């Protein structure tokens, strides 16, 4: 670690009714990777927005390269050398890689854009990063991982001195994360200051030098990563210890009936001849790398996307599922990986979302019985411990974990016995995560059955009774939890033809 390049001291920021940042400190040195951690809503993003001039601070000082600064907008911060690589990629799919990198500051040849020069410059950047991407390739044809690399290249092209990574690994495969880490280490060795925001504890241990923890808008402390344990950090984040022990044996009885049987399911390129069984009271984990076809399998099974062939049996009865309506009638509920797009209606209330899948049982003649609706929704708010001021609160105002609980409530109100949880804890903070886990365990104890798609190995090993592994649209492995190890799962997940 080198000299201090950036110091934020006593940063305070209030919005009407919310004290978002309460005298927060952050110090970044040259040549370090500094993790910024905290539960959702702890104020990490707000702090970064203050740094890059999206918000103005109420109090405190920002010292950058020895001078006190205050950026009026992200462009000014960028020009000074502070850039953010966003979690959600801001890429223009129809343009080429080079055109994306130089968007807004195109290299000109007279009055015309000089694409050739931009391609050369982009190629130089990729060389520098040691990545193999063709600058002339159309952006939308790249994988998410490669697109992320382009974002990084774009950041570096600004002659960045401080780079902020906002949950960069959320959508990456293990291999891509490895590549990302290599690049981050390179940048660190070039004496850049790196701020790394992530929820993944394992990554923090691997890649970062120091960790600053925030909680409820306040500064909790800064640790040296190698001198602290996972529990130390989690403790600082939530003030309680969360155990992440893997499950060792299946909790499902040997003779538990099969509630769902899928045979030779085919749907497009991503679902090729997939067969599996789900037993009553079981959590069946679906593991695999990004793009293995797990979500596609779930969507085809649920009738969200058309399927080409394959038989589905629910409780031994053959069923014909063509639309989500059919699936819901069979008692299947689906929690999408993309909650905001497919799970909830954000500008509607908790109550309205909760009854969305079962409105017919809330009718009083022609009209919706709003009293009953509120009452049942309230009941599930209590059972699931959803944090909301009331059932008439708009879902947009809830945190990710609580939004997820509203989606779960929707399927429980419908009394679905088979639940498909697609990345149930994505983008959810540690505390809410363990609540969702507990909830899933309670559900299966009550006799419901769960298919859980997850990209997090720890989650798969902690929750599943049995694990199906997929790779490139095919089922490449099935393991009982007793015999499952990270290595065996990874082996199956990379088993290509």
């Amino acid at each position: 670690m080198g000299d201090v390049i950036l110091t934020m001291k006593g940063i305070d920021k209030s919005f009407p009714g919310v004290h978002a940042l309460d005298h927060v400190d952050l110090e970044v040195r040259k040549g370090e990777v500094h993790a910024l951690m905290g539960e959702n809503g702890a104020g990490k993003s707000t702090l970064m927005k203050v740094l890059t001039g999206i918000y103005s601070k109420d109090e405190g000082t920002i010292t950058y390269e020895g001078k006190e600064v205050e950026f009026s907008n992200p462009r000014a911060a960028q020009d000074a050398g502070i850039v953010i690589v966003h979690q959600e990629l801001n890429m223009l799919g129809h343009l080429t890689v080079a055109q994306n990198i130089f968007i807004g500051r195109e290299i000109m040849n007279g009055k015309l854009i000089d694409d050739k020069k931009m391609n050369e410059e982009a190629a130089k950047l990729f060389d520098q990063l040691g990545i193999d991407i063709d600058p002339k390739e159309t952006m939308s044809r790249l994988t998410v991982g490669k697109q992320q690399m382009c974002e990084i290249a774009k950041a570096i092209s600004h002659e960045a001195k401080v780079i902020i990574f906002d949950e960069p690994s959320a959508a990456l495969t293990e291999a891509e994360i490895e590549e990302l880490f290599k690049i981050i280490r390179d940048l660190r060795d070039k004496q850049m200051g790196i701020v790394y925001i992530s929820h993944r504890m394992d990554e923090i241990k691997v890649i970062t030098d120091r960790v600053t923890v925030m909680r409820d808008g306040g500064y909790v402390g800064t640790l040296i990563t190698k001198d602290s344990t996972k529990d130390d950090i989690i403790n600082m984040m939530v003030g309680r210890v969360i155990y992440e022990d893997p499950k060792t044996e299946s909790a499902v009885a040997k003779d538990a009936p099969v509630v769902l049987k899928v045979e030779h399911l085919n749907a497009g390129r991503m679902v090729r001849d997939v067969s599996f069984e789900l037993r009553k009271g079981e959590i069946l984990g679906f593991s695999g790398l990004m793009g293995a076809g797990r979500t596609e399998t779930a969507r085809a099974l649920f009738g969200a996307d058309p399927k080409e062939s394959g038989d589905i049996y629910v409780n031994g009865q053959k069923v014909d599922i063509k639309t989500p309506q059919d699936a819901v009638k069979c008692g299947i509920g689906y929690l999408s990986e993309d909650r905001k797009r497919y799970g909830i209606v954000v500008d509607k209330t908790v109550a309205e979302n909760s009854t969305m899948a079962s409105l017919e049982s809330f009718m009083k003649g022609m009209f919706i019985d709003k009293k009953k609706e509120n009452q049942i929704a309230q009941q599930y708010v209590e059972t699931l411990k959803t944090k909301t001021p009331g059932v008439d609160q708009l879902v947009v105002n809830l945190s990710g974990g609580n939004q997820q609980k509203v989606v779960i409530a929707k399927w429980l109100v419908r009394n679905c016995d088979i639940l498909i949880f697609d990345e149930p804890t994505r983008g959810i903070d540690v505390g809410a995560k363990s609540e969702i886990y507990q909830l899933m365990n309670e559900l299966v104890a009550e006799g419901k059955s769960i298919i859980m798609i997850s990209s997090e190995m720890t989650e798969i090993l902690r929750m599943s009774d049995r694990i199906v592994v997929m790779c490139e649209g095919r089922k490449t492995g099935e393991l009982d939890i007793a015999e499952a190890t990270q290595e065996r799962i990874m082996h199956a997940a990379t088993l290509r033809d």
Partner: protein
Amino acid sequence: MRQRLGIRGDETMTDKKQGNAFTNNPIVRAIGVQKIVVVIVLIAMILFFSAMSPAFRQYSTLLSIMDYTYYLAFLGIGVTFCLITGGVDLSIGTGMFCYALIGGYLINYVHTPVIVGILATVACGLIAGTINGLIVSKGGHAPFLATLCMMMILRGLGALVTGGASITWPGATAPNGWTRTLFKMDMGGTKVPLGFLWVLILAVVMSIFLNRSRPGRYIIAIGSNKEATRLSGVNVAVYQTLAYIISGLFTGLAALAYSSAFQSMTPGGGGGIELNAIGGAIIGGTSMSGGAGTIAGTILGVFIMSVLQTGLPLIGIQANFQQIIIGIVLIVAVYIDVLKNKKLA
């Protein structure tokens, strides 16, 4: 929605930790404020026109505002449903003319009883609305394009049926002119704008339908997040189609109101009226991006449009300027909608 958020105001204020008071209340205010602003603007406009023009203060002006309001209100109520699903129905202006021409043709030239003409008018609306709905929901066409094409078809169809002739529905004094008295009753020499009663009744019925019935709930949900609604097991195609059928039905009713209020209809006319109706809905707080809107707001917005249309000529503003002024009013209304959406995002 207003009611719900209104009740919750205090409780969310106390919940500082989640920041709900902060994120929620501006939306509450935006929704509440817009309605209040519309009412104030409406009153201000009436006062302004009254002060500027003695003619505006006359009873006959009220009747003429009402004549404008009836058909615009019906069109507005119908199209509000399309707008709430995130779509739009551009065929309602020419559609209204087309259906009235067909109905009037039956009465005048085929000599059917008036009731047949009325039923035919409404049926035409239902049919065109159903076709619109199916093209959008099953065919996957953009509502803008689908209904734009329907607008052209209806424009041609109306002219074709009447052979290019203008049509006048039976006059108030004619033996079969009772359709006119439905909207403007002559009570001992005073004309009573009876149509306002029908507008009010239908507005209340449709408002209850929108907010309390299952189809209404689904129509709002589709506009908010169609995919999430579909994945909740809702047959979204059915309810999306229904929104266009409602629009068609109310266009049929608007055709009746229009033909009762005005002298004659020219084939190929009616274009541009849809924008007044859509504009009324937007002024009243219905979102162009779907998911939000109220019938009460639409009625208020429509009143603004009809007061403008009646008042501007009376203070000596010529027709071309009227168009410009109405255009500017709409830009402001849409801008308010954009601001509201930003707050939600």
